[in-house]
């Protein structure tokens, strides 16, 4: 038996109307700059996006996109933003961590001095709030006390992002609306669920797996490797569940890197952007075919 299919409509009612497209950018530290490559492709191809969802470093780029920032400006700024961002230690936290009986422990401990992080966020986002976005923005974070997933959709964007990027142990937890929040990646590294909840039919899901370090030569390395294993599996489990469990079409954009890139390796950003762009381009042919089938898009959109 031979069967040939060119454009069988399998999405049911989804194809009877203009598809609602969600952009999800997951957690991944400096690797989230790969999202710039994806944003370049979206702009070049004229792909309409209706909802932006971001987590941790991905929240920075989801927010910039939702606010309508030009991709070229985002790229230029990113080359500066990450420089020396995580290189200064927060000595009080360090002392509290090693000698809590002497210096007193505090749940907002973070080993990195976050003043520069705040300055960078303030320089870009200032007092802008969610209401100023041209499309709805959702930022994923984690309640440090209850462990619950949290979605931030209102208030100052800077607070939402600062909470979402609070990498456990590195950056202090951040209070928002009477909750103490940490990195969204701790509970929801690729928040596809938020895009599904917001009614998206097609979800561009950009996630970032971490590379395993070659060898473990210190306790810090061991902690890092353990974190990488747990985070990668959480990312895969999240992608697997929402891909199989829901009718939404999830297009994974997960660039494969040939090297491990740490938070302080900002000189790798051009390479990361290039890899993000390449991975996004792989999805374009299918995305264009999919959009061409919707009644609202008689022909594939072009910028």
């Amino acid at each position, binding site marked *: *038996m031979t069967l*040939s*299919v060119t454009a069988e409509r*399998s999405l049911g009612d989804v194809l009877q109307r203009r598809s609602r497209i969600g952009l999800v950018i997951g957690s991944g530290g400096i690797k989230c700059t790969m999202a710039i490559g994806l944003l370049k492709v979206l702009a070049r191809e004229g792909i309409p996006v209706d909802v932006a969802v971001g987590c941790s470093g991905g929240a920075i780029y989801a927010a910039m996109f939702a606010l309508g920032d030009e991709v070229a400006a985002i790229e230029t700024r990113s080359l500066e933003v990450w420089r020396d961002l995580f290189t200064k230690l927060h000595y009080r936290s360090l002392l509290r961590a090693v000698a809590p009986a002497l210096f007193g422990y505090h749940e907002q401990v973070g080993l990195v001095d976050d003043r520069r992080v705040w300055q960078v966020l303030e320089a870009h986002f200032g007092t802008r709030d969610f209401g100023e976005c041209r499309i709805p923005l959702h930022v994923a974070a984690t309640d440090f006390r209850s462990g619950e997933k949290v979605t931030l959709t209102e208030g100052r964007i800077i607070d939402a992002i600062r909470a979402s990027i609070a990498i456990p142990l590195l950056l202090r937890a951040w209070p928002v609306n009477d909750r103490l929040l940490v990195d969204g990646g701790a509970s929801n590294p690729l928040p596809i669920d938020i895009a599904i909840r917001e009614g998206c039919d097609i979800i561009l899901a950009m996630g970032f797996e971490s590379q395993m370090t070659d060898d473990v030569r210190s306790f810090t390395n061991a902690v890092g490797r353990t974190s990488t294993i747990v985070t990668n599996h959480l990312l895969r489990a999240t992608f697997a569940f929402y891909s*199989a469990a829901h009718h939404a079409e999830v*297009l994974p954009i*997960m660039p494969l890197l040939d090297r491990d890139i740490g938070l302080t390796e900002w000189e790798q950003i051009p390479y990361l952007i290039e890899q993000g762009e390449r991975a996004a381009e792989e999805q374009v042919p299918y995305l264009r075919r999919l959009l061409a089938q919707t009644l609202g898009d008689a022909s594939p959109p072009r910028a």
Partner: protein
Amino acid sequence: MMEVSIQQHNHVAVVVIAGSIDALTADALVTALLAELQQGRTRLVADFSAVEYTSSAGLRVLLTTLKDARQRGGDLRLAHIRPNVRQVLELSGFTSILKCFPDRDSAIASYPA
């Protein structure tokens, strides 16, 4: 675009799929696969050597077929998966729940006679 051809190899039905398994082709593929199962051909091998792309809709086709085949005492096994498709299958955990083989012959041979 996708093409499906089904060939019988003794006790195994080999489903050769070419093109993209996605939301635009998923219904046709699942219909063809479930039709094989309903006719009692429950030992399936999907030859993926010409599958260029798989989306989440494609993953759901595999899952539906796998569940149905196993409920009928058979199985769905994959052969010759391209690296980009394998990446999606690995990310979604499908390589953990499906038996995958480097080529069609070894997939066919994996079923007892």
